[in-house]
């Protein structure tokens, strides 16, 4: 698909950092407010799809190859699996929450309500799943838009 006019390109490149920061906020606060990895990943992916629609698929494919996107998605999946297997090493159960309630990994950073280590292994799993979902959905949209372009644009 070809790009759109100059006004659309300017406005979407202004709005893209705001949408990305909002999506990262929803991923990071997944254990306190409604949200989490899947919802925040969908928001970041729709921000990237807005850039794809505004600038055209040929320009975007020239900047980002899909090999790098699949490497990032595999990193997210490996992180999720390794957090589950570490629960098997430090406890005796698959998927055990091994960072909850003990302080021999990070100590007490911050005290009382400002404690960084809340909810154990849940925020780390949220980051891994958020990376995987956002990069995966953007890769699907990019490949489908590039493969169906018309023949007069090269």
């Amino acid at each position, binding site marked *: 698909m070809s790009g759109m006019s100059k006004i659309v390109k300017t406005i979407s490149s202004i709005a893209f950092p705001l949408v990305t920061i909002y999506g990262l906020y929803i991923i990071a606060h997944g254990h306190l407010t409604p949200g989490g990895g899947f919802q925040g990943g969908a928001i970041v992916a729709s921000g990237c799809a807005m850039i794809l629609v505004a600038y055209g698929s040929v320009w975007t494919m020239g900047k980002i190859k899909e090999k790098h996107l699949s490497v990032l998605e595999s990193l997210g999946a490996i992180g999720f699996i390794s957090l589950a297997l570490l629960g098997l090493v430090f406890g005796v159960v698959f998927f055990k929450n091994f960072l909850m309630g003990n302080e021999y990994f990070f100590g007490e950073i911050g005290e009382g309500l400002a404690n960084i280590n809340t909810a154990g292994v849940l925020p780390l799993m949220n980051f891994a799943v958020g990376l995987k*979902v956002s990069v995966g959905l953007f890769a699907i949209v990019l490949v*489908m838009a590039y493969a169906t372009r018309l023949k007069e644009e090269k």
Partner: protein
Amino acid sequence: MIFNIPFIAVAALVLIGLYAVILKPNLIKIVIGITLIESGVNLFLITLAFRQDSIAPIYHGAGSRLMSLPVPHALTLTSIVIGVAVLALMLSLVIHIYRHYGTLDARKIRRLKE
């Protein structure tokens, strides 16, 4: 009987989706019908999680009020993501069929070998 309106809405969504899958010859309309059945099943799952006069199951700023059941919300999240994955694969197969046969009519692509 007037209080079972969400369940009747679920039945209506599944029936309209099933009608589109069986009786329409266009491939894109069949894909839309499958998505409608998926939406009806998601609505049924979150209808089962409601208690009378309850709030969302989150502890921030809630006293000791009644809370909805959290397990059907988690199952609906998984179902929505699986629906997106199936829709992506179906649409890429439709694009591949259109390039090979040149038509989108489901009655003309029934040959199994060339």
